[in-house]
């Protein structure tokens, strides 16, 4: 009795992913034997392909923990997280969350945030191309309408707020030699690609709270209040002009019209 096509493909896929399962029925060789090593080639291809893809997307995370630890961590992730689509360029979007809950990496509290910067960087790299909002348009808004205005985030814009120096650690690993990290502090990093180059900038605490609100689509008034609460010395005008000048937004929304 042979199984139907769909049934046998299901059995093949299951055995591929779970080394604990017996080899699928019906696989053979020219000698007519069932060869576990030949089946293992496919199993290896799946896992080595996925873990290699993660290593390419998370090079700093990999350097931080070393190749062997990374391979084991990526292998554990890949066992339960297959790409939802054939677009491997997006594989690992939730790898940072996995790392945060991965007990063997628990002592590296900053590691998930470094991985989040790597996610933001690659997302920005592949994001839709769009002209950033021109600062002149902000300058032309009637002053009394500024607080009610909200901005459309640029498709490439991402913000990583960390309790650790995740940006400094990431940056320290961009060269051959790893630069020393001298100050242990919280950091916020804005990632954006206004044209063809991905820009990464530290933001001061008030500006980070401000940017976080704006990227979620709140009005400038609401975002400013959050920023003042986070940092009393927050400078609204400089932060807005700075973020717009960096290309973090692509347009502003029409006024909500709810206010007097």
């Amino acid at each position: 009795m042979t199984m139907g096509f769909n049934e046998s493909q299901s059995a093949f896929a299951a055995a591929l992913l779970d080394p604990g399962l017996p080899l699928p029925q019906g696989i053979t060789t020219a000698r007519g034997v069932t060869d576990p090593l030949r089946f293992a080639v496919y199993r290896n291809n799946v896992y080595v392909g996925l873990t290699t893809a993660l290593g390419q997307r998370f090079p700093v995370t990999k350097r931080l923990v070393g190749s062997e630890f990374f391979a084991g961590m990526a292998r554990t992730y890949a066992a339960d997280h297959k790409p939802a689509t054939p677009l491997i360029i997006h594989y690992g979007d939730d790898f940072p969350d996995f790392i945060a809950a991965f007990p063997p990496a628990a002592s590296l509290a900053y590691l998930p945030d470094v991985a989040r910067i790597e996610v933001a960087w690659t997302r920005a790299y592949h994001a839709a191309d769009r002209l950033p909002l021109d600062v002149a348009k902000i300058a032309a808004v009637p002053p009394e309408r500024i607080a009610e205005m909200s901005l459309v985030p640029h498709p490439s814009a991402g913000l990583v707020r960390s309790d650790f120096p995740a940006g400094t650690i990431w940056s320290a690993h961009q060269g051959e030699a790893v630069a020393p990290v001298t100050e242990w502090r919280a950091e916020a990093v804005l990632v954006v690609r206004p044209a063809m180059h991905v820009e990464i900038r530290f933001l001061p605490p008030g500006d980070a709270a401000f940017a976080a609100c704006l990227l979620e689509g709140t009005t400038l008034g609401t975002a400013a209040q959050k920023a003042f609460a986070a940092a009393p010395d927050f400078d609204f005008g400089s932060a807005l002009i700075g973020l717009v000048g960096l290309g973090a937004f692509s347009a502003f929304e029409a006024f909500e019209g709810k206010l007097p």
Partner: protein
Amino acid sequence: MNRSTLTLALAGSLASAIASASFAAPLAPEKMAGNEKCYGIALKGQNDCAAGPGTTCAGTSTMDYQGNAWKAVPAGTCTSMNVDGHKGMLEPVKS
């Protein structure tokens, strides 16, 4: 801060940012390109070649880690990162 006070404060802050020396001619794109460097602190960027995973139709003869046989040995740069007493060591995995 009530709504009208906020509106006034924001409008004033924006006006002075636009009027300030560094933004004296903010409407010229080439000036803005220069000005934006003043905002935030730029971090050294990633090499575009390492821009994410590739898709391939090739196989591999590399052997995969066999599930729970993996034991972690911290060997990365985290082991040398020790700032203000914040250690970067990893726990070895018990299998």
